[in-house]
């Protein structure tokens, strides 16, 4: 079976449209980030206490909130989340600057007292001191920067400098798009999401390198073709692989997204979108950069 055989799609002819779309989307993401005052950090980064409870009988958010009001924790966030039970679980997020030892017990005891006929089970407690959150933010940025520099050096060694720059810009593009998307959708930035972003970076680079590898090979092979054509031909030649690997990975992620449960729901969503974006960027961002670079630097290497 074969999906694509000898395709001849003019990807590079549409690069300006793609670059414009990407830029607009990144811009929208940045605007959203600025308007919202930065990413929507989860407890991992912002610090605070999160308590997830599973009640024996369904309970409304308002009911929980009114109990919290009585113990002066009314500014806490209360929301329902779909869990493994027959009805949604309740997530209580207490904003606090310091990790108070008694908070969890206080919340538990008061809910227990207020609604004795609806017992609950503690599913999860997450308590992160502000110090830890700050450290993690630093570490996350550091990890992204270090991995991008590592990739830049490796590719500059294995290919040419412009390839390395192209791949890194494409990866940065993916990360920006993802951060923007998460901000626009107001999804939380947690440790797991950062891990997902780094995985996407890895996947995107992987995908880009496959295309680059073919370009590198075709530059030597197709000496009469223009650089424009070399890139188009290379993308078309690797298209079958791009689609197949992308779709099996997507397939697995769709399964994770639907069956993986609440805990990794956002995580698999990030990966799902990330794989699409990563594949797109290899063709429409990473490859065009080589072309633009060539044109701007003005070197007459059109016929190699």
């Amino acid at each position, binding site marked *: 079976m074969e999906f694509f055989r000898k395709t001849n799609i003019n990807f590079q002819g549409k690069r300006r449209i793609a670059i414009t779309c990407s830029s607009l989307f990144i811009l929208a993401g940045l605007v959203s980030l600025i308007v919202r005052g930065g990413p929507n950090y989860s407890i991992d980064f912002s610090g605070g206490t999160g308590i997830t409870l599973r009640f024996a009988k369904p309970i409304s958010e308002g009911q929980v909130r009114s109990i919290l009001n009585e113990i002066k924790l009314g500014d806490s966030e209360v929301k329902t989340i779909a869990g493994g039970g027959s009805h949604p679980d309740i997530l209580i997020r207490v904003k606090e600057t310091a990790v108070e030892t008694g908070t969890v017990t206080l919340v538990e005891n008061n809910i227990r007292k207020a609604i004795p006929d609806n017992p609950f089970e503690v599913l999860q407690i997450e308590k992160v001191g502000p110090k830890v959150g700050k450290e993690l933010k630093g570490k996350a940025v550091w990890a992204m920067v270090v991995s991008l520099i590592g990739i830049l050096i490796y590719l500059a060694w294995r290919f040419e400098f412009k390839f390395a720059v192209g791949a890194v810009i494409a990866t940065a593009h993916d990360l920006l798009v993802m951060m923007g998307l998460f901000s626009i959708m107001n999804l939380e930035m947690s*440790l797991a999401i950062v891990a997902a972003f780094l995985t996407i970076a890895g996947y995107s680079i992987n995908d880009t390198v496959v295309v680059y590898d*073919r370009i590198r090979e075709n530059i030597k092979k197709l000496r009469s073709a223009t650089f424009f054509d070399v890139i188009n031909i290379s993308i078309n030649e690797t298209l079958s692989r791009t689609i197949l690997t992308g779709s099996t990975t997507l397939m697995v992620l769709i399964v994770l997204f639907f069956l993986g449960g609440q805990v990794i729901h956002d995580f698999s969503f990030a990966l799902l979108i990330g794989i699409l974006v990563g594949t797109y960027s290899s063709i429409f961002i990473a490859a065009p950069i080589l072309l633009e670079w060539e044109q701007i630097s003005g070197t007459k290497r059109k016929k190699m």
Partner: protein
Amino acid sequence: MKKRNPLFRIILIAVLMIAAVYYLYPTIRFEQLKKVEQTKFATLASLTGLPVEKISRDAYVGEIDLRDSIPGWDGMDESARRQITEDLQDLKGPFRETIQGYRSKAIRRGLDLQGGMRLVLEVDLVKLLDNLAQRKDEKFDNMLEQIRSQMTDPEVEFFDVVKRVFAEANIPLNRYFLTSRSTESEILKYINEEASDAVDRSLEILRNRIDQFGVSEPNITKQGSRRIVIELPGVQDPERARQLIGKTALLEFKLLADPEMYSTLIDRVDRFLRKEKGLETESDSLAETQKADTDTTTKARTDTTQHVSQDTVVNLKDLFGGETQMPETTGVSIDANLLKEAPFKALLRDIGQDIVAVPTANYAAVNNIIHRKEVQELIPKNVEFLWSNTPQPGPGGELYWILYLVKSEPELTGSAVRDAKVDIGSGYNPGSSGMPYVALSLNRDGARVFSEVTGANVGKQLSIVLDNKVRSAPVIKTKIPSGNAEITGNFTMDEAKDLAIVLRAGALPAPVEEIEERTVGPSLGEDSIKSGTISFVVGFFLVVLSMAIYYRLSGLYADIALILNLIYIVATMAGFHATLTLPGIAGIILTVGMAIDSNVLIFERIREELRAGKTVRAAIETGYARAFVTIMDSQITTLIAGVALYQFGTGPIRGFALTLIIGIISSMFTAIVVVRVIQDFIVNKYDPKTLSI
């Protein structure tokens, strides 16, 4: 083209396979034994009538004998008793050893899968520095504050911060530490040793506490230079564990200050407060002093009865002109008559026997007053204020916090405790009858000191202070030469047990701060295992199926490689004794999805070569050779991202990164070597004209 000799590669695959089985075996055995263990627990539960949770917890604690806690032990028939005893012996002895042996080599399940608690504690080294200092003054306190504020970055070495802050203030270290003749490097070395020793000792002490608490496979590790990570899988009562771990457990025996000294101090505080409000001028303060001194004791006593009825609720701002920094208390209970002449005393109550009690409503106000800098200066250097552990019921049933004035220098500390155990109050002591208390036995030196102290202070009160809270303050009735002491209080059995545990394990050299906690309940763990397994099976099946459809026979080879790949990943995890977490499972699933990339690259190349008219053998040869470069370049870049992720990640994220890294390496191996061996074998044997690809 010469035939490739596959022997080396076949041997390589076989060796790896054997290694994989070797590393996986303990995990498989462990999972089996865990099931056996559960049935053993269940059998014991039905035999003893105790809940399974209790059995599973207590079965691992060597010192607690289940027989003590089994109701109706004496009524049971002989065979049942023997069976219980034998089962217990087995669980604690041979069976435990076997299961532990496998456990140490098996893949661990992350807390997110089996439920449990993860705590990150930070040892308060600044406090340790404070403890180490030979003398203290305001400058020293300021520097400590500076050090504390610079310690927020975990990468910063405590040692460097101390050095820098002292250097910037231009103060030699020997003004505060060791002797004045000590050199700077000596002192820095000393501080450094004490600090790293403090963290190690804290870790040991916490390990002791947890072992005695009874958690089946705790994991306690040092993180960085001053953090301790504690993982307690399957812990049933997180709050209790938190209490047990968070306590410094500094036990001190301190004599109470004389009641006269106390009342003088109260008057001094009142005079200060009055002066602050401008109610008193410098000149009449002397006269006041004498008047107050004679008045105090009698007045306080006679007034007690009226106090309650005359209480009015006064806003704090009216009382102190809004100058004092106090939390938003709605109102405090104030004795209106006393308010004017003695604003501090007005907040206090005398509930007899020289006990200074503070109604719970006044607690915050009193606490603020006694911690004010000016008030602290009024307190004589050799005494300090300490609060009671909990509010206590007064004569009228109201709750009061007790404010003690004790001598700062302890007569004895917890280091003198040889053993601590829980006992139940006996019948002839009416107050404590049937109540659990902690019985301490002191070591030889401790017993000698205790004997001297009690002998010299008969009739006085000796407070038992734990973590700067007074647990009890019994009156010394006679000299106690035996070296036995008791800590009483309104303990529940569990509280008393835990107190005994922390006292046996000893005090932490410095307080610990809980900076992170993650607790996962057993239900969520089960949910995660369930959804993890389902998505894994479905995802894996889909990938296998699509490969077979798309590449036909060659796709099946790739599927064999995929299965091998999976075995290698899991075996490597077992080899590293890694932890399997939910993101880890996601990592494996994702790896499965991405692992086929290497095969896809190779197969697509072979197809191209075939299309270009090459023979099967040549197409495979060139296909592999050409794809190899691509695979290396693309996978190594992914690997770089994976390593960065591993470096950055903590806990579950690390698990995810590790599976990703292992998956990348293993998928490269299986695609390039394993599938190649199969294809070469087919080509060499049948020399087909077409390739099913």
